[in-house]
């Protein structure tokens, strides 16, 4: 049997820029911030982890997949 991973119960904190119930823009912003961050600091940089945690926690998996596809096709709408 595989080793039981220890679970740290924590999630990305609130963001004062997005105080409303609509969190769509926050997820998108985090996604862009993360990709800008790894562009600047290189893949696997510790400073980018918080952005990764943010968009993974807030964006539906389907959106992330779609954006990945769009970026591969060059049709992504964001500033990347």
């Amino acid at each position, binding site marked *: 049997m595989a080793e039981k991973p220890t679970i740290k*119960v924590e999630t990305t904190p609130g963001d004062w820029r997005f105080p409303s119930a609509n969190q769509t823009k926050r997820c998108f912003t985090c996604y862009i911030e993360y990709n800008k961050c790894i562009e600047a600091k290189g893949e696997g940089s510790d400073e980018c982890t918080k952005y990764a945690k943010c968009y993974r926690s*807030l964006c539906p998996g389907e959106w992330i997949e779609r954006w990945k596809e769009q970026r591969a096709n060059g049709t992504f709408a964001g500033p990347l």
Partner: protein
Amino acid sequence: MILRSLECRFLTIALCDAAEPWQLGSQDAATPMMQGIIDLHHDIFFFLILILVFVSRMLVRALWHFNEQTNPIPQRIVHGTTIEIIRTIFPSVILLFIAIPSFALLYSMDGVLVDPAITIKAIGHQWYRTYEYSDYNSSDEQSLTFDSYTIPEDDPELGQSRLLEVDNRVVVPAKTHLRMIVTPADVPHSWAVPSSGVKCDAVPGRSNLTSISVQREGVYYGQCSEICGTNHAFTPIVVEAVTLKDYADWVSNQLILQTN
């Protein structure tokens, strides 16, 4: 059946966390939010009864005294400044007394005051729900995701509620601040659990946030609350609140299951 329902309301110790036949009141509160909603309902009901009694009395008196037999010659008063001022000011004051607790509750439900400990994504599909727990993954692919389908009508086991039970429940820890992200993948849905006081619409292309903090362990039942197609009635929601330790165990077990 009514008797059975009354018995459930008043004679049992178990709390009411699912819809019942002939139910008239709210389900029992599991979150401070729902407690606030129930309290507000009772507060407003006080004014409601007051107005009902007052208006009924006026109506009955008017019908009793001013009819053809008792008053053959009608009076022709068409204007009265005093009574007009009173009947404008007085209802406004009543409305004000209703508005104050109402707005207080509305803003306390809206405001996210504390940082949550868990983010759960509830994604509505035609006609099931996908839940994503993505706080524990280190890449885009390996998030803890599962589908939650209803148990078909002819299939429930003894003790399961018809059309309310699902195959995979959403497990959450009790007494912990949760952030629910609600969004659909196709048409509008709504994620609603009456005991937790949450009814959050899932709008395509938008992700809505709602915060809950379940105060006691238990199983809470809800149903889709936005007409979403043929099987709208067969898209229930089941939240299982456990202790924080059990939650951590559940997550690690699920992660092992998903990686294997």
